[in-house]
């Protein structure tokens, strides 16, 4: 279990994401790094992990290479069940998805995510400063998976007091029972995995709270890169560097072509 000394920010995100996934649970996997993390978990501590992709595949063994799309042919071969988008989201709305694994361009302290637009909302909704792809399935997962794991690159502009547009609701305004009052299901955001550390949400306040710092980061350096006041867990600890074997798996077996895990040196 030698620690790697040569890994990238995306690689530690993948390792962190994979460790949060529990064996034998059903995880609704969004596109990009979540796919890599689910594969890594499956190849390491969670061989019984059951991925669900929004285009319809449930429980594929993923032995034909990394999908580049959640609708990719590679998600279907060997799956237990394949229908379309409605079926996948209905499973989720019904309560079958233990975890949802989603990314976003901007997040606030309650885990509300934006992947719609940057700019002046609501007035500038029809003329956004930067138009992002849109929700895709993210807001559906946020609304209906039992717990969600968020991935957001850590950057002061992305960890904001308020998101420009709330695409994927998290703990809303953080008030107790806010999700229930809004008619939502599920416990909402569970972990945030960033390029600098890992957060959970404090019980009661539902505010984002640092629980792990990555090697080379400190509580202070992470607060510095955050656009709101980050709570800090009394048990905050360093997240161990990925092992050489984990990095080998990512680079050689899971994403050998760097489709999602870019080879930018850390």
């Amino acid at each position, binding site marked *: 279990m030698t620690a790697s000394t040569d890994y990238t920010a995306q690689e530690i995100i993948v390792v962190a994401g994979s460790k949060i996934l529990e064996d034998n649970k059903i995880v609704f996997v969004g*596109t*990009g790094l979540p796919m890599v993390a689910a594969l890594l978990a499956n190849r390491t501590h969670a061989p019984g992990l059951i991925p669900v992709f*929004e*285009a*319809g*595949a449930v429980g594929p063994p993923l032995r*034909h*290479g990394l999908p*580049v*799309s*959640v*609708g*990719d*042919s*590679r998600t*279907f*071969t060997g799956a237990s069940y*394949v*229908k*379309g*988008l*409605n079926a996948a*989201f209905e499973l989720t*709305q019904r309560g079958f998805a233990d975890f949802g694994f989603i990314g976003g361009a901007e997040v606030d302290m309650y885990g*509300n995510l934006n992947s*719609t*637009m940057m700019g002046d*909302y*609501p007035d500038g*909704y*029809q*003329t*956004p*400063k*930067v*138009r992002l*792809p*849109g*929700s*895709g*399935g*993210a*807001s*559906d997962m*946020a*609304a*209906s998976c039992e717990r969600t794991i968020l991935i957001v690159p850590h950057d002061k502009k992305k960890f904001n007091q308020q998101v420009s547009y*709330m*695409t*994927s*609701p998290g703990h*809303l305004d953080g008030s107790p029972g806010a*999700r229930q*009052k*809004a*008619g*939502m*299901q599920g416990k909402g955001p569970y972990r945030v995995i960033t390029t600098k550390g890992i957060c959970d949400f404090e019980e009661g306040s539902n505010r984002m709270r640092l629980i792990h710092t990555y090697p080379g980061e400190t509580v202070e350096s992470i607060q510095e890169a955050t656009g709101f006041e980050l709570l800090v867990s009394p048990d905050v600890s360093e997240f161990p560097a990925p092992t050489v074997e984990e990095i080998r798996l990512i680079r050689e077996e899971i994403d050998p072509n760097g*489709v*999602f895990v870019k080879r930018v040196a850390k």
Partner: protein
Amino acid sequence: MENNANMFWTGLSPDEAREALVNKDKSMRDKRMSLKDAVSKFINDGDNVGIGGFVDVRQPIATCHEMIRQGFKDLTLSFQSAGMAPEYLGAAMILNPEKCNIKRIELAYWAHEGFGLAPGWRYLAERGLIDIEDWSNYNMSARFKAGSMGLPFIPTRSPLGGDIKDTSRTKIIDCPFTGRKIGVIPASNPNVSVLHVQAADKFGNCIIRGTDCTCAEIAMASAHTIVTCEQLVSHELLCSNPKDVMIPFAAVDAVVEVPYGAYPGACRRHYWFDGDHIRNFLGLIAPIVKGGPTDALKAYFDEYIYGVENFEGFLQKVGVKDLLAVKALEMQNCERLA
């Protein structure tokens, strides 16, 4: 946003959608025609066009090329997640908004996942050239589903909590049974839908491999449907296991055999993505978003779309090497004896 918060129908209202079907010839008849004829006959200016597939999987690319050659005006495009289909249509609008014009897009996502963001989307949206209505994948899929079920609306929990409910025609009501809040979203009944599938018979019965996406719902919701297929096969073979049929003939108006009709996107059992072609195409649009020249994009259109008669002409330009390569890749994902 201005008017999305108020209710109006794009495409057909539920009652109009019903009447369209009631008055339609739903018989089991030969619906084969050229793609040129199908597009000319069933896609009209001002239509709401439902687009099948998901991101760059099974998008109706051949049909989009033909639409561009014929030109289109004031279209509303409706889809959950799309990639190259709106990217081609949007790029055509960038080059010549008089000839090719999109008025409005109702969508969940427009980008290309592993192949990158959508510059056509950024161009059209950031310049305010189109009306936008954001939904989620399940919202849009459920809207088509409501349309396919003959319902004016469907409840869903997805729009609760976030901002989508405020920038779309979603309403939040108190559930008549639990008293808890729940979202209700209006059906989508496009005037016409454009789909690509693996196999069809001449009557329009369709088999889909891999994800069904939301294709069946879109077809059943629409007043008319144009289907392109990799293989046009006999009715007897197609329906040898009727449970494989995802779209019944009565929902289809035109059937066209177009091998590689979703290229450069993927089509399960036939070909995987041509990532290079997709990235190259996106690379032609990206500079224009920042105000760069349109020459390179125009050259692509002149060579690959306007410069050919039909999709086979496009495939000839692409060349055998690339077509065999994406076919070989898919055979690794999904090995099958011919």
